[in-house]
């Protein structure tokens, strides 16, 4: 349960940085992500339209890379928690019966990524704290800060910054 997490025990994990190689984002990936959103924006689907707007290929929907939950291959299915979450996904262990919710994201977009670029990311745990909720009991908040880089040109360039929070609660 979230209430079994003692933030003080894990303060040494704050500042932990993980590196992820998301890989080259194909045109089809950008198109499929947009289709999964049911977003028909031609920038994401039509390379000719995207070129007319000054991009080299279709634009990758900006929130696609930071929306990827598992940025690596993930653990074998047998090692997933009961709730489906990768037991190694977070830098601190979660109690077996803890529940998890996305708390939101804030993206600063330096430039759009276009199809064909290779994207890497660095994610840092920046804060871990608890708050009491009248309806949900003790909630544990994990804050992360991520930088995303693309190497479509010769130099690795930051293209996006993401601040995000995950909320761990107790089963009700």
């Amino acid at each position, binding site marked *: 349960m979230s209430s079994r997490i003692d933030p003080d025990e894990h303060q040494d994990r704050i500042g932990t940085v993980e590196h992820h190689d998301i890989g080259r984002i194909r045109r089809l990936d950008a198109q499929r992500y947009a289709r999964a959103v049911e*977003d028909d924006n031609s920038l994401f689907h039509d390379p000719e339209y995207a070129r007319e707007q000054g991009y080299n290929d279709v634009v990758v929907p900006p929130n696609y890379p930071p929306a990827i939950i598992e940025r690596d291959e993930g653990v074998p299915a047998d090692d997933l928690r009961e709730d*489906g*979450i990768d037991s190694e996904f977070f830098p601190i262990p979660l109690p077996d019966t803890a529940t998890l919710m*996305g708390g*939101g994201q804030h993206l600063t*977009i330096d430039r759009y990524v276009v199809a064909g670029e290779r994207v890497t990311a660095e994610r840092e745990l920046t804060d871990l704290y608890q708050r009491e909720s009248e309806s949900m009991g003790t909630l544990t908040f994990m804050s992360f800060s991520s930088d995303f880089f693309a190497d479509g040109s010769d130099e690795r360039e930051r293209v996006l910054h993401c601040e995000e929070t995950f909320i761990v609660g107790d*089963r009700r």
Partner: protein
Amino acid sequence: MNVEDVSVGDELHLEKEPTRAQLFRYSAMTWNPHRIHYDPEYAREVEGHPDVLVQAQLHGAVIQELVMDWLGGDGELVEIGWRNVGRATPDRTLRVGAEVTTIDQDERTVDLDVWTETDDGRAAEGTATVRLSE
């Protein structure tokens, strides 16, 4: 559209109705194995949700859709942020909204409040900033 065409108070609206197939595709594309998005029995009986839930990031994606559709080729999205403050379930209307709050003529930037909501209230709320082309 240029910055002179935008006024504080301008509103944008979009209606979505996420389906279970859409949630499945979204989880697949984002390599999201969280069971509350595909197993209604688990979502209800173990975690106490009314059904499977629309993913937190999908709320941001539909806000992004609304704002970028409005922009067309006339500028770029430079910031978007939202907090997930409620739940949304599939096969129900999810309204997406935005309202212009600030315009900086010199920087050609426009700030908007953004949100998603169901009949039960707000599911996500936040802000976005766009920069219009010269």
